[in-house]
């Protein structure tokens, strides 16, 4: 099981908003697949899946903010 967290994004960026989930719960994702699109006020980027597995749970809804290091999803 792996927890997908919002990675360090460098100086001055402490949080980002979930803008779009690319996969539904229950679907298989492969290591490196773009799992979720995040947005800050100046940038849009994707967080990839760290492992191959089934997306068990999305922990944050679209439109909600997450801090760096916080969990976004669980993959098993």
């Amino acid at each position, binding site marked *: 099981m792996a927890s997908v967290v919002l*990675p*360090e*994004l*460098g*100086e*001055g*960026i402490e949080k980002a908003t979930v*803008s*779009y989930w690319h996969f539904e719960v229950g679907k298989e994702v492969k290591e490196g697949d*773009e799992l979720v*699109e995040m*947005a*800050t*006020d*100046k*940038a*849009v*980027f*994707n967080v*990839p899946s760290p492992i191959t597995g089934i997306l068990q749970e999305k922990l944050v809804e679209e439109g909600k903010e997450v801090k760096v290091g916080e969990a976004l999803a669980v993959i098993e």
Partner: protein
Amino acid sequence: MYLSVIDLGRVSFKEAFWRQIQLHREILEDDACRSHTIILCEHPHTITTGKKVNAENLLDYKFIKDNNVDFVVGINRGGDITYHGPGQLMGYLIFDLRKLNRNLGGFLNKIEDVIIKTITAFNISTYTKSGFRGIWVNEQKIASIGIGVDRWVSLHGFGLNVSTDLSFFDIIKPCGMDIKMTSMKEQLARQVDINLVKEELVRQVCDIFKLESSREHAFV
């Protein structure tokens, strides 16, 4: 590392975007790539939006339709709705952030520095505003920034109003905010040669990102 400079002149948003996608793919597929790229261009009258389209920020759809303004929605960049057109210098940055310590925040700060120092070289005092995007002059916005990052390689960039016809911003709510836009021409009350702005911009990118300009690709 080198800075490859591609000057496309006046091209459609779609053509510049296609060029970005090609370069993005080349950088991703070539681990040994030793250069970042900036595409410089101007667009014909164009309205673009980020992924989230807020219809109420488009104030005059009839004007867009009647004046044959290009309308491109759902771009994978930060930011809301904006206008691009002749006299606005677009800088599209295809940078490999894996070679910049994956420091997205630092990358964005440096882009702001590049724009500020470029405009300052023309004797206009600019600043960033806490909580607001872009670069400002006398409480008016002169440049907008919107970046996309895919697998740690950036896309999109900024638009700097050099001699933009500012009346076109009246058809939208720029960046979804009640703000007034300005240009270098308006601030200086004289015409500004966009080619001089391009030269200064490239100098500042090289200086701030510690890159060497790749002459063989410059202004092709």
